[in-house]
Protein backbone atom coordinates (compact mmCIF):
# COMPACT_ATOMS: atom_id res chain seq x y z
CA UNK A 1 0.00 0.00 0.00
CA UNK A 2 1.13 3.52 -0.65
CA UNK A 3 1.32 6.03 2.17
CA UNK A 4 -1.82 7.71 0.90
CA UNK A 5 -3.73 4.43 0.65
CA UNK A 6 -2.68 3.52 4.17
CA UNK A 7 -3.81 6.86 5.53
CA UNK A 8 -7.12 6.67 3.69
CA UNK A 9 -7.81 3.22 5.14
CA UNK A 10 -6.92 4.39 8.64
CA UNK A 11 -9.12 7.46 8.45
CA UNK A 12 -12.04 5.45 7.07
CA UNK A 13 -11.68 3.15 10.05
CA UNK A 14 -11.47 5.97 12.59
CA UNK A 15 -14.52 7.62 11.06
CA UNK A 16 -16.47 4.41 11.43
CA UNK A 17 -16.86 3.99 7.67
CA UNK A 18 -15.00 0.69 7.82
CA UNK A 19 -15.28 -1.83 10.64
CA UNK A 20 -12.15 -2.37 12.72
CA UNK A 21 -11.77 -6.00 11.66
CA UNK A 22 -12.22 -5.12 7.99
CA UNK A 23 -9.78 -2.23 8.14
CA UNK A 24 -7.24 -4.31 10.04
CA UNK A 25 -7.48 -6.94 7.32
CA UNK A 26 -6.98 -4.37 4.57
CA UNK A 27 -4.05 -2.78 6.40
CA UNK A 28 -2.55 -6.04 7.61
CA UNK A 29 -2.39 -4.83 11.22
CA UNK A 30 -3.52 -6.14 14.59
CA UNK A 31 -7.21 -5.23 15.02
CA UNK A 32 -6.84 -4.82 18.78
CA UNK A 33 -4.09 -2.27 18.26
CA UNK A 34 -6.05 -0.50 15.54
CA UNK A 35 -8.99 -0.28 17.92
CA UNK A 36 -6.78 1.62 20.39
CA UNK A 37 -6.43 4.43 17.88
CA UNK A 38 -10.11 4.40 16.96
CA UNK A 39 -11.03 4.79 20.63
CA UNK A 40 -8.52 7.56 21.17
CA UNK A 41 -9.59 9.54 18.11
CA UNK A 42 -13.23 9.54 19.20
CA UNK A 43 -12.18 10.08 22.80
CA UNK A 44 -10.49 13.38 22.03
CA UNK A 45 -13.72 14.82 20.70
CA UNK A 46 -15.68 13.43 23.63
CA UNK A 47 -13.23 15.03 26.05
CA UNK A 48 -13.41 18.35 24.22
CA UNK A 49 -17.20 18.32 24.50
CA UNK A 50 -17.01 17.36 28.17
CA UNK A 51 -14.60 20.22 28.83
CA UNK A 52 -16.71 22.84 27.08
CA UNK A 53 -20.18 21.67 28.13
CA UNK A 54 -19.91 20.26 31.66
CA UNK A 55 -23.21 21.70 32.86
CA UNK A 56 -25.15 20.60 29.81
CA UNK A 57 -23.84 17.07 30.10
CA UNK A 58 -24.56 17.00 33.83
CA UNK A 59 -28.18 17.92 33.08
CA UNK A 60 -28.61 15.21 30.47
CA UNK A 61 -30.21 11.91 31.26
CA UNK A 62 -27.11 9.67 31.65
CA UNK A 63 -28.69 7.03 29.45
CA UNK A 64 -28.69 9.45 26.53
CA UNK A 65 -25.04 10.43 26.64
CA UNK A 66 -23.06 7.46 25.25
CA UNK A 67 -25.07 7.29 22.08
CA UNK A 68 -25.03 11.07 21.86
CA UNK A 69 -21.22 11.15 21.97
CA UNK A 70 -20.94 8.69 19.14
CA UNK A 71 -23.63 10.41 17.08
CA UNK A 72 -21.95 13.79 17.50
CA UNK A 73 -18.60 12.39 16.44
CA UNK A 74 -20.18 10.82 13.37
CA UNK A 75 -22.11 13.93 12.43
CA UNK A 76 -19.36 16.46 13.01
CA UNK A 77 -15.90 15.18 12.15
CA UNK A 78 -13.38 17.79 13.28
CA UNK A 79 -11.74 19.56 10.39
CA UNK A 80 -9.28 21.83 12.16
CA UNK A 81 -6.57 21.38 14.76
CA UNK A 82 -8.41 23.22 17.52
CA UNK A 83 -10.26 20.96 19.93
CA UNK A 84 -12.41 23.94 20.92
CA UNK A 85 -13.54 24.15 17.31
CA UNK A 86 -14.22 20.41 17.32
CA UNK A 87 -16.66 20.87 20.19
CA UNK A 88 -18.15 24.05 18.76
CA UNK A 89 -21.00 22.48 16.73
CA UNK A 90 -22.33 20.62 19.78
CA UNK A 91 -25.22 23.01 20.61
CA UNK A 92 -26.50 22.96 17.02
CA UNK A 93 -26.17 19.20 17.01
CA UNK A 94 -28.22 18.94 20.21
CA UNK A 95 -30.95 20.98 18.61
CA UNK A 96 -31.48 18.24 16.05
CA UNK A 97 -30.67 15.26 18.25
CA UNK A 98 -32.55 15.84 21.49
CA UNK A 99 -36.18 16.39 20.46
CA UNK A 100 -36.71 12.69 19.71
CA UNK A 101 -35.06 11.58 22.93
CA UNK A 102 -36.09 13.96 25.73
CA UNK A 103 -39.12 16.10 26.41
CA UNK A 104 -39.61 19.25 24.39
CA UNK A 105 -39.15 21.34 27.53
CA UNK A 106 -35.89 19.63 28.43
CA UNK A 107 -34.55 19.80 24.88
CA UNK A 108 -35.18 23.53 24.65
CA UNK A 109 -33.45 24.17 27.97
CA UNK A 110 -30.46 21.94 27.19
CA UNK A 111 -29.87 23.54 23.80
CA UNK A 112 -29.92 27.02 25.27
CA UNK A 113 -27.69 25.93 28.15
CA UNK A 114 -25.19 24.47 25.67
CA UNK A 115 -25.18 27.68 23.66
CA UNK A 116 -24.54 29.58 26.87
CA UNK A 117 -21.63 27.32 27.82
CA UNK A 118 -20.14 27.76 24.35
CA UNK A 119 -20.37 31.50 24.86
CA UNK A 120 -18.60 31.24 28.21
CA UNK A 121 -15.77 29.27 26.57
CA UNK A 122 -15.51 31.83 23.80
CA UNK A 123 -15.37 34.75 26.22
CA UNK A 124 -12.77 33.03 28.39
CA UNK A 125 -10.34 32.60 25.50
CA UNK A 126 -11.30 35.34 23.06
CA UNK A 127 -8.16 37.02 21.79
CA UNK A 128 -9.79 40.13 20.38
CA UNK A 129 -8.87 42.36 23.28
CA UNK A 130 -5.23 41.30 23.17
CA UNK A 131 -4.99 41.25 19.38
CA UNK A 132 -6.56 44.62 18.76
CA UNK A 133 -5.36 46.29 21.90
CA UNK A 134 -8.97 47.38 22.35
CA UNK A 135 -8.94 50.76 24.08
CA UNK A 136 -10.70 50.79 27.42
CA UNK A 137 -14.31 51.90 27.19
CA UNK A 138 -15.08 54.90 29.36
CA UNK A 139 -13.18 58.03 30.27
CA UNK A 140 -14.46 58.63 33.79
CA UNK A 141 -13.42 57.12 37.08
CA UNK A 142 -14.41 53.62 35.94
CA UNK A 143 -13.57 51.56 32.86
CA UNK A 144 -15.95 49.03 31.39
CA UNK A 145 -14.60 45.50 31.13
CA UNK A 146 -13.84 45.26 27.37
CA UNK A 147 -14.88 41.60 27.24
CA UNK A 148 -18.42 42.32 28.46
CA UNK A 149 -21.33 41.24 26.29
CA UNK A 150 -25.03 41.16 27.05
CA UNK A 151 -27.08 38.21 25.84
CA UNK A 152 -30.76 37.49 26.00
CA UNK A 153 -31.89 34.04 27.12
CA UNK A 154 -35.34 32.49 27.17
CA UNK A 155 -34.72 30.14 30.09
CA UNK A 156 -33.65 30.88 33.67
CA UNK A 157 -30.11 29.77 32.86
CA UNK A 158 -28.40 31.86 35.52
CA UNK A 159 -30.82 30.84 38.23
CA UNK A 160 -30.39 27.17 37.33
CA UNK A 161 -26.59 27.38 37.23
CA UNK A 162 -26.28 28.98 40.65
CA UNK A 163 -28.98 26.87 42.35
CA UNK A 164 -27.72 24.55 45.05
CA UNK A 165 -28.98 21.94 44.98
CA UNK A 166 -30.18 21.94 41.40
CA UNK A 167 -33.91 21.40 40.95
CA UNK A 168 -34.93 17.86 40.02
CA UNK A 169 -36.50 18.95 36.75
CA UNK A 170 -35.29 21.33 34.10
CA UNK A 171 -37.14 24.65 33.96
CA UNK A 172 -39.43 25.66 31.12
CA UNK A 173 -39.06 28.77 29.00
CA UNK A 174 -39.88 31.96 30.80
CA UNK A 175 -39.80 35.64 30.02
CA UNK A 176 -36.69 36.69 28.11
CA UNK A 177 -33.97 37.99 30.37
CA UNK A 178 -30.59 39.62 29.85
CA UNK A 179 -27.37 38.09 31.14
CA UNK A 180 -24.03 39.86 31.34
CA UNK A 181 -21.11 37.65 30.31
CA UNK A 182 -17.52 38.75 30.73
CA UNK A 183 -14.01 37.61 31.50
CA UNK A 184 -12.83 38.50 34.98
CA UNK A 185 -10.02 41.03 34.61
CA UNK A 186 -7.75 39.34 37.16
CA UNK A 187 -8.77 35.70 37.29
CA UNK A 188 -9.33 35.44 33.51
CA UNK A 189 -12.34 33.18 34.11
CA UNK A 190 -15.63 33.57 32.25
CA UNK A 191 -18.28 35.07 34.56
CA UNK A 192 -21.96 35.77 34.22
CA UNK A 193 -24.51 37.83 36.09
CA UNK A 194 -28.20 38.40 35.65
CA UNK A 195 -28.52 41.94 34.37
CA UNK A 196 -30.07 43.64 37.36
CA UNK A 197 -30.93 47.34 37.29
CA UNK A 198 -27.99 48.06 39.61
CA UNK A 199 -25.49 46.33 37.36
CA UNK A 200 -26.86 47.91 34.21
CA UNK A 201 -26.63 51.29 35.91
CA UNK A 202 -23.00 50.62 36.80
CA UNK A 203 -22.27 49.51 33.25
CA UNK A 204 -23.79 52.73 31.90
CA UNK A 205 -21.75 54.85 34.28
CA UNK A 206 -18.52 53.15 33.19
CA UNK A 207 -19.40 53.09 29.49
CA UNK A 208 -20.40 56.76 29.40
CA UNK A 209 -17.56 57.91 31.65
CA UNK A 210 -19.94 59.42 34.18
CA UNK A 211 -19.34 60.41 37.73
CA UNK A 212 -21.49 58.06 39.86
CA UNK A 213 -22.88 60.88 42.01
CA UNK A 214 -23.82 62.94 38.95
CA UNK A 215 -25.39 59.89 37.33
CA UNK A 216 -27.38 59.15 40.49
CA UNK A 217 -28.70 62.71 40.70
CA UNK A 218 -29.62 62.69 37.01
CA UNK A 219 -31.51 59.44 37.51
CA UNK A 220 -33.18 60.60 40.69
CA UNK A 221 -31.41 57.97 42.79
CA UNK A 222 -29.58 58.29 46.10
CA UNK A 223 -25.84 58.74 45.55
CA UNK A 224 -25.19 55.95 48.05
CA UNK A 225 -27.05 53.57 45.73
CA UNK A 226 -24.88 54.57 42.78
CA UNK A 227 -21.71 54.14 44.79
CA UNK A 228 -22.87 50.76 46.04
CA UNK A 229 -23.62 49.68 42.48
CA UNK A 230 -20.12 50.68 41.39
CA UNK A 231 -18.54 48.89 44.35
CA UNK A 232 -20.43 45.74 43.46
CA UNK A 233 -19.55 46.01 39.76
CA UNK A 234 -15.90 46.48 40.67
CA UNK A 235 -15.94 43.43 42.93
CA UNK A 236 -17.53 41.34 40.18
CA UNK A 237 -15.04 42.50 37.55
CA UNK A 238 -17.66 44.16 35.34
CA UNK A 239 -15.77 47.42 35.59
CA UNK A 240 -12.33 48.40 36.73
CA UNK A 241 -11.00 51.55 38.29
CA UNK A 242 -9.65 53.94 35.67
Amino acid at each position, binding site marked *: *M*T*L*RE*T*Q*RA*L*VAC*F*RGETAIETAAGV*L*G*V*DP*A*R*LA*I*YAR*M*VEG*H*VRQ*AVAAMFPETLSALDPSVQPALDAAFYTAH*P*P*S*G*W*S*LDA*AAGPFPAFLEGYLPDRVSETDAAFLVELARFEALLAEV*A*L*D*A*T*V*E*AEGTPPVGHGPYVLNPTLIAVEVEHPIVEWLVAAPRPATLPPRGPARTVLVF*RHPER*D*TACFQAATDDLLFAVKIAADGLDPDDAARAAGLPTDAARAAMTNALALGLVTGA
Partner: protein
Amino acid sequence: MPPVSPTAALGHGVGLRRPHWAELLQQPERVDFVELLADNFLGRGGAPARMADRVRETWPCVLHGVALSIGGPAPLDTDYLDAVAALARRTGARWYTDHVCFSNAFGVELHELVPLPCTREAVRHVVERVKQVQARLGPGLPFGLENATTYLRFPQDELGEAEFLTEILNGADCGLLLDVNNVYVNSVNHGFDPRAFIDALPLRRVLQIHLAGHEWVDGTIIDTHGTTMIPEVLDLYAYTLERTGPVSTLVEWDNRIPPLDVLLAENDRVRARAAAVLCGGGAA
Protein backbone atom coordinates in the same frame (compact mmCIF):
# COMPACT_ATOMS: atom_id res chain seq x y z
CA MET B 1 33.14 34.72 24.23
CA PRO B 2 31.30 32.64 21.62
CA PRO B 3 27.52 33.15 21.41
CA VAL B 4 25.38 30.68 23.31
CA SER B 5 23.80 28.18 20.96
CA PRO B 6 20.01 28.57 20.77
CA THR B 7 19.79 24.84 21.29
CA ALA B 8 22.12 24.65 24.30
CA ALA B 9 20.98 22.34 27.09
CA LEU B 10 18.46 24.07 29.32
CA GLY B 11 18.54 21.68 32.26
CA HIS B 12 15.50 19.97 33.72
CA GLY B 13 11.96 21.16 33.13
CA VAL B 14 8.32 20.20 33.06
CA GLY B 15 5.46 20.46 30.63
CA LEU B 16 3.51 23.44 31.90
CA ARG B 17 -0.12 22.44 32.48
CA ARG B 18 -2.87 24.77 33.56
CA PRO B 19 -3.55 23.32 37.02
CA HIS B 20 0.06 24.17 37.94
CA TRP B 21 0.37 27.63 36.43
CA ALA B 22 -0.18 29.77 39.50
CA GLU B 23 1.63 27.51 41.94
CA LEU B 24 4.71 27.08 39.76
CA LEU B 25 4.96 30.84 39.30
CA GLN B 26 5.31 31.03 43.09
CA GLN B 27 8.40 28.79 43.03
CA PRO B 28 9.97 29.34 39.61
CA GLU B 29 13.39 28.14 40.76
CA ARG B 30 12.10 24.56 40.98
CA VAL B 31 12.46 24.07 37.21
CA ASP B 32 15.12 25.20 34.78
CA PHE B 33 12.77 25.57 31.83
CA VAL B 34 9.21 24.85 30.76
CA GLU B 35 7.59 23.44 27.66
CA LEU B 36 4.32 24.87 26.41
CA LEU B 37 1.92 22.70 24.48
CA ALA B 38 1.57 25.22 21.68
CA ASP B 39 -1.91 24.06 20.67
CA ASN B 40 -3.26 25.17 24.05
CA PHE B 41 -2.04 28.72 23.49
CA LEU B 42 -2.45 29.45 19.79
CA GLY B 43 -5.00 32.11 19.01
CA ARG B 44 -6.16 32.30 22.59
CA GLY B 45 -6.54 35.41 24.67
CA GLY B 46 -7.29 35.56 28.36
CA ALA B 47 -5.43 33.29 30.73
CA PRO B 48 -3.24 31.53 28.13
CA ALA B 49 -2.12 34.85 26.65
CA ARG B 50 -1.33 36.22 30.08
CA MET B 51 0.54 33.05 31.01
CA ALA B 52 2.58 33.14 27.81
CA ASP B 53 3.83 36.55 28.84
CA ARG B 54 4.63 35.35 32.35
CA VAL B 55 6.55 32.43 30.94
CA ARG B 56 8.75 34.75 28.93
CA GLU B 57 9.53 36.73 32.06
CA THR B 58 10.19 33.67 34.19
CA TRP B 59 11.81 30.72 32.41
CA PRO B 60 13.54 29.66 29.24
CA CYS B 61 10.85 27.93 27.24
CA VAL B 62 10.34 25.57 24.32
CA LEU B 63 7.22 24.85 22.26
CA HIS B 64 5.78 21.44 21.57
CA GLY B 65 2.85 20.66 19.30
CA VAL B 66 0.55 17.80 18.39
CA ALA B 67 -1.26 19.10 15.33
CA LEU B 68 1.34 19.75 12.64
CA SER B 69 0.62 16.44 10.88
CA ILE B 70 4.07 16.32 9.36
CA GLY B 71 3.30 13.02 7.64
CA GLY B 72 -0.21 13.94 6.51
CA PRO B 73 -1.38 14.07 2.90
CA ALA B 74 -2.78 17.61 3.03
CA PRO B 75 -0.61 20.67 2.43
CA LEU B 76 0.94 21.98 5.61
CA ASP B 77 -1.23 24.50 7.42
CA THR B 78 0.81 27.65 7.06
CA ASP B 79 -1.59 29.64 9.24
CA TYR B 80 -0.90 27.17 12.01
CA LEU B 81 2.85 27.46 11.50
CA ASP B 82 2.66 31.25 11.48
CA ALA B 83 0.72 31.12 14.75
CA VAL B 84 3.40 28.87 16.24
CA ALA B 85 6.08 31.31 15.11
CA ALA B 86 4.16 34.19 16.68
CA LEU B 87 3.85 32.27 19.95
CA ALA B 88 7.58 31.55 19.83
CA ARG B 89 8.30 35.25 19.46
CA ARG B 90 5.95 36.06 22.31
CA THR B 91 7.47 33.52 24.69
CA GLY B 92 11.06 33.64 23.48
CA ALA B 93 10.89 29.90 22.78
CA ARG B 94 14.23 28.28 21.93
CA TRP B 95 12.79 25.65 19.59
CA TYR B 96 9.59 23.98 18.44
CA THR B 97 8.89 20.28 18.12
CA ASP B 98 6.13 17.98 16.91
CA HIS B 99 5.84 14.26 16.20
CA VAL B 100 6.68 11.85 13.42
CA CYS B 101 3.09 10.92 12.59
CA PHE B 102 0.02 12.22 10.84
CA SER B 103 -2.94 13.75 12.62
CA ASN B 104 -4.97 15.20 9.79
CA ALA B 105 -5.97 13.59 6.50
CA PHE B 106 -8.63 14.01 3.83
CA GLY B 107 -10.24 16.89 5.65
CA VAL B 108 -10.57 15.11 8.98
CA GLU B 109 -8.66 16.17 12.05
CA LEU B 110 -7.89 13.16 14.21
CA HIS B 111 -6.28 14.93 17.18
CA GLU B 112 -4.16 11.80 17.54
CA LEU B 113 -0.59 10.89 16.64
CA VAL B 114 -1.25 8.22 14.05
CA PRO B 115 1.84 6.30 12.95
CA LEU B 116 3.30 6.29 9.48
CA PRO B 117 4.46 3.15 7.73
CA CYS B 118 8.26 3.00 7.91
CA THR B 119 8.77 3.19 4.15
CA ARG B 120 11.10 5.16 1.95
CA GLU B 121 8.08 6.88 0.43
CA ALA B 122 7.13 8.14 3.89
CA VAL B 123 10.72 9.26 4.53
CA ARG B 124 10.73 11.32 1.33
CA HIS B 125 7.33 12.78 2.15
CA VAL B 126 8.28 13.80 5.68
CA VAL B 127 11.70 15.14 4.72
CA GLU B 128 10.16 17.40 2.10
CA ARG B 129 7.62 18.70 4.56
CA VAL B 130 10.15 19.28 7.33
CA LYS B 131 12.08 21.44 4.91
CA GLN B 132 8.89 23.42 4.27
CA VAL B 133 8.42 23.86 8.01
CA GLN B 134 12.00 25.01 8.47
CA ALA B 135 11.68 27.48 5.61
CA ARG B 136 8.45 28.88 7.02
CA LEU B 137 9.76 29.22 10.59
CA GLY B 138 13.14 30.57 9.60
CA PRO B 139 16.50 29.89 11.18
CA GLY B 140 15.62 31.64 14.42
CA LEU B 141 13.30 28.86 15.52
CA PRO B 142 14.91 25.42 15.22
CA PHE B 143 12.48 22.59 14.54
CA GLY B 144 12.65 19.08 15.90
CA LEU B 145 10.70 15.86 15.55
CA GLU B 146 9.75 13.48 18.32
CA ASN B 147 9.73 9.72 17.99
CA ALA B 148 6.08 8.95 18.69
CA THR B 149 4.52 6.05 20.50
CA THR B 150 3.25 3.61 17.89
CA TYR B 151 0.85 0.79 18.60
CA LEU B 152 0.85 -0.40 14.99
CA ARG B 153 3.41 -1.85 12.66
CA PHE B 154 2.59 -2.08 8.96
CA PRO B 155 3.39 -5.02 6.71
CA GLN B 156 4.84 -2.70 4.07
CA ASP B 157 7.50 -1.36 6.48
CA GLU B 158 10.85 -1.33 4.71
CA LEU B 159 12.87 0.15 7.55
CA GLY B 160 13.11 -0.37 11.27
CA GLU B 161 11.81 2.54 13.31
CA ALA B 162 15.29 3.77 14.28
CA GLU B 163 16.43 3.64 10.65
CA PHE B 164 13.22 5.38 9.57
CA LEU B 165 13.79 8.20 12.06
CA THR B 166 17.45 8.48 11.17
CA GLU B 167 16.74 8.85 7.46
CA ILE B 168 14.17 11.56 8.16
CA LEU B 169 16.37 13.50 10.58
CA ASN B 170 19.45 13.32 8.39
CA GLY B 171 17.51 13.97 5.21
CA ALA B 172 15.88 17.06 6.63
CA ASP B 173 18.80 18.17 8.80
CA CYS B 174 16.44 18.30 11.72
CA GLY B 175 16.66 17.99 15.50
CA LEU B 176 15.38 15.00 17.47
CA LEU B 177 13.14 15.26 20.48
CA LEU B 178 13.97 11.87 21.90
CA ASP B 179 11.13 10.55 24.00
CA VAL B 180 12.83 7.87 26.03
CA ASN B 181 9.55 6.61 27.43
CA ASN B 182 8.23 6.19 23.89
CA VAL B 183 11.29 4.14 23.01
CA TYR B 184 10.61 1.89 25.99
CA VAL B 185 6.88 1.62 25.25
CA ASN B 186 7.49 0.74 21.61
CA SER B 187 10.23 -1.73 22.54
CA VAL B 188 7.80 -3.67 24.72
CA ASN B 189 4.80 -3.37 22.41
CA HIS B 190 6.79 -4.35 19.34
CA GLY B 191 9.47 -6.51 20.90
CA PHE B 192 12.84 -4.91 20.29
CA ASP B 193 15.88 -3.98 22.36
CA PRO B 194 15.49 -0.34 23.48
CA ARG B 195 19.22 0.15 24.02
CA ALA B 196 20.04 -1.04 20.53
CA PHE B 197 17.36 1.36 19.30
CA ILE B 198 19.03 4.27 21.12
CA ASP B 199 22.41 3.24 19.73
CA ALA B 200 21.02 3.28 16.19
CA LEU B 201 19.77 6.87 16.39
CA PRO B 202 21.77 9.92 15.27
CA LEU B 203 22.29 11.08 18.84
CA ARG B 204 24.15 14.22 17.81
CA ARG B 205 20.76 15.48 16.67
CA VAL B 206 19.11 15.16 20.08
CA LEU B 207 17.67 18.54 20.95
CA GLN B 208 15.67 17.53 23.98
CA ILE B 209 14.52 14.47 25.89
CA HIS B 210 10.99 13.66 27.06
CA LEU B 211 10.18 11.39 29.96
CA ALA B 212 6.75 10.29 31.18
CA GLY B 213 4.79 7.50 32.78
CA HIS B 214 2.86 4.80 30.97
CA GLU B 215 0.34 2.09 31.87
CA TRP B 216 -0.62 -1.40 30.80
CA VAL B 217 -4.09 -1.68 29.27
CA ASP B 218 -5.33 -5.02 27.97
CA GLY B 219 -1.89 -6.39 27.22
CA THR B 220 -0.48 -3.26 25.59
CA ILE B 221 1.50 -0.45 27.16
CA ILE B 222 -0.30 2.83 26.57
CA ASP B 223 1.63 6.07 26.71
CA THR B 224 -0.78 7.75 29.10
CA HIS B 225 1.44 10.42 30.65
CA GLY B 226 -0.64 9.75 33.72
CA THR B 227 1.67 8.29 36.34
CA THR B 228 5.25 8.21 37.54
CA MET B 229 7.87 6.65 35.30
CA ILE B 230 9.12 3.18 35.97
CA PRO B 231 12.78 2.45 36.84
CA GLU B 232 13.39 0.85 33.45
CA VAL B 233 12.62 4.15 31.73
CA LEU B 234 14.94 6.04 34.06
CA ASP B 235 17.63 3.43 33.36
CA LEU B 236 17.16 3.93 29.63
CA TYR B 237 17.41 7.68 30.17
CA ALA B 238 20.69 7.19 31.98
CA TYR B 239 21.92 4.93 29.18
CA THR B 240 21.02 7.65 26.68
CA LEU B 241 22.69 10.44 28.62
CA GLU B 242 25.93 8.47 28.76
CA ARG B 243 25.96 8.70 24.98
CA THR B 244 24.68 12.23 24.47
CA GLY B 245 26.06 14.19 27.37
CA PRO B 246 23.83 16.89 28.89
CA VAL B 247 20.50 17.30 27.15
CA SER B 248 17.49 19.45 28.05
CA THR B 249 15.19 16.97 29.77
CA LEU B 250 11.51 17.39 30.39
CA VAL B 251 8.92 15.47 32.39
CA GLU B 252 5.44 15.30 30.82
CA TRP B 253 2.29 14.60 32.81
CA ASP B 254 -0.99 15.12 30.97
CA ASN B 255 -3.62 12.84 32.46
CA ARG B 256 -4.76 12.65 36.06
CA ILE B 257 -2.49 15.60 36.64
CA PRO B 258 -1.12 15.34 40.18
CA PRO B 259 -0.37 18.07 42.72
CA LEU B 260 2.60 20.15 41.61
CA ASP B 261 4.82 18.69 44.32
CA VAL B 262 4.43 15.22 42.81
CA LEU B 263 5.44 16.47 39.38
CA LEU B 264 8.38 18.40 40.80
CA ALA B 265 9.50 15.36 42.78
CA GLU B 266 9.50 13.42 39.54
CA ASN B 267 11.56 16.14 37.92
CA ASP B 268 13.99 16.09 40.86
CA ARG B 269 14.30 12.32 40.54
CA VAL B 270 15.29 12.76 36.90
CA ARG B 271 17.67 15.56 37.75
CA ALA B 272 19.40 13.41 40.38
CA ARG B 273 19.73 10.52 37.96
CA ALA B 274 21.21 12.79 35.31
CA ALA B 275 23.68 14.22 37.80
CA ALA B 276 24.76 10.73 38.77
CA VAL B 277 25.38 9.82 35.15
CA LEU B 278 27.04 13.04 34.07
CA CYS B 279 29.18 13.26 37.20
CA GLY B 280 30.49 9.75 36.75
CA GLY B 281 27.87 7.57 38.42
CA GLY B 282 27.02 5.77 35.19
CA ALA B 283 23.90 4.02 33.98
CA ALA B 284 22.35 1.20 35.92
